[in-house]
């Protein structure tokens, strides 16, 4: 169960990564830092204003959607036509600045958000307990993923995002404001990561390097699901979460991150297009 819960959060982070890749064709190394900043914003909303993380969720989402929108327009747009390595180095530079900026501003200390339900567990059976915060994170992740799916399939901007992802030139000819779609997508992806940060902040320590832990998993999940594939990322996130937890409990906690990597390399080798070939179609 814990695996499924963790997996749903991985899904949310990876969906953000994968829609950015699918549409803008850029691998955002700083994606994990958005999650980290989302956690810090949640922490400060809670510690200074006393806002519960769950109430803070829409605030964080809105703030980071705007931040992502601006970030894309200022930093990413000028380099979009540059070769792969230039784009990669741009987001890598952003990662270094944000991560170490966080160390500078808030030190490398661990922080925690304490809510009345942080230590709450629900008993389901004889030996079956569920962490309440994890369950909330799971449910919220599912709802947000579903919401995103509906947005991408049913609304004008959602369809525009997918159209640009498939063929940006044709989309532009057909009257889609491609520049705005790019900024919108980046904002959306960024907001997903930050929202995931908010959700895990109720049970996960907050520190400047937390992004790195999640970004590696997010990459693995996104590639396994097929880069740019929404449903693939969602399912792969759940799978990786379960595998990771099974390894941690069944084999050894030390190999938690190693086994998913082995799976990742096997997927790259045998099925580079991703495990889940269900395409997002209307």
């Amino acid at each position, binding site marked *: 169960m814990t695996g499924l819960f963790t997996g749903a959060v991985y899904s949310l982070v990876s969906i953000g990564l994968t829609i950015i*890749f699918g549409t803008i064709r850029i*691998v955002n*190394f700083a994606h994990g830092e958005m999650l980290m900043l989302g956690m810090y914003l949640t922490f400060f909303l809670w510690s200074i204003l006393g806002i519960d993380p769950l109430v803070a969720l829409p605030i964080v989402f809105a703030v980071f959607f705007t931040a992502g929108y601006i970030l894309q327009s200022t*930093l990413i747009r*000028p*380099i979009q036509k*540059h*070769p*792969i*390595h*230039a784009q*990669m*180095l*741009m987001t*890598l*530079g*952003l*990662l*270094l*600045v944000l991560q*170490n*900026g966080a*160390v*500078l501003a808030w030190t490398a200390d661990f922080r925690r958000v304490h809510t009345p339900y942080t230590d709450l567990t629900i008993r389901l059976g004889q030996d079956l307990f569920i962490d309440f915060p994890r369950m909330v994170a799971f449910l919220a992740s599912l709802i947000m993923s579903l919401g995103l799916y509906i947005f991408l399939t049913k609304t004008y901007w959602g369809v525009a995002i997918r159209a640009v992802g498939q063929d940006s030139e044709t989309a532009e000819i057909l009257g889609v404001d491609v520049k705005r779609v790019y900024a919108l997508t980046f904002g959306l992806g960024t907001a997903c990561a930050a929202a995931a940060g908010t959700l895990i902040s109720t049970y996960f320590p907050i520190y400047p390097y937390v992004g*790195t832990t999640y970004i*590696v998993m997010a*990459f*693995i999940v996104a*590639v396994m699901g097929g*880069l740019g594939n929404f449903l693939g990322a969602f399912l792969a996130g759940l799978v990786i979460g379960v595998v990771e937890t099974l390894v941690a409990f069944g084999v050894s906690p*030390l190999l938690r*991150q*190693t086994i998913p*990597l082995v799976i*990742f*390399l*096997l997927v*790259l*080798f045998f099925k*580079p297009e991703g495990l889940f070939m269900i395409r997002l179609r209307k």
Partner: protein
Amino acid sequence: MGPTVYVVAFLLSLSVIPMLTESHVVIDVLFFTLLYAFLSTAWNIQSGFCGQYSVGHAAFLGIGAYTTAILYTRLGISPWLGLWVGAGMAALFALAIGFPTFRLRGYYYILATLAVAEVLRTFFLAWDFTGRSLGIAYPLTEDSFWDLQFHTSRAPYFYIMLAFLICSVLISHWIRYSKFGLNLLSIREDEDAAQSLGINPFRHKMAATALSAGLTGIGGALLAQFNLFIEPDTLMSLHVSADILLPSLVGGIGTVWGPVAGSFILQPLSWILRLGLGSDVIHIIIRGILLMVIVAIIPRGVVATVIERYVRPRLIKR
């Protein structure tokens, strides 16, 4: 030989510096400048010449360092031998990673290098054999060439590093202008066209990454000998990989002299900032900003752009 002659001559001329000053700070900063020039030259062989961008070279650095350190501290094997074993291990590791990933293009290799370096770091943090987060500390000996430890004067480190750097520059030059190197460049420019001309892209990529990783492993071994202490976080974090690729980027990707020139700009600057500001993170932030600015304005590298714009036209006029 072209510009390589000037680079080598410049590096040789540096060898007088330890005779002029005894200052440990100067020698140490110079050591790191040479080390990162060396590492970036290694990175450039794979990423600059062959176009297979790696953001996980810290993994190879770590393997070289850990192999040398473990062989020395547990079995008493001289670092001079351990260094080559470390290089071999790093090269083998690179081949193992390259095997599944080089059949793919573009992002997949980049992502794999990042993931592999991170997992190796977390693995070393958890593994008893590598000393977990405590790392491995060397027992201190007196100054000894065989043990590769120098305390009274840091100059021998400098000279050893200089010798390795000059070798790597010559290797890089040889590759760049050999048929092998031209094949690498053609793969970078257009893999399909290269293949249609009878070049096997997979084999060339494997050769380039093995060579690149092996050299990086040597760099790791030398770094371990210099610090006499190794630990996963400072050796294998993502920002170390960034440090390795930055000099090439600043100097000029895909050139022989670019990594050296870049390192001589970045490292002294970084150390001045670090010592001057007394902070362990500000210089990383500044480097991140530098990275973004360079990529946005002059993606071909500072030195390459300056030469292209100002030096070459003047030479042609004459």
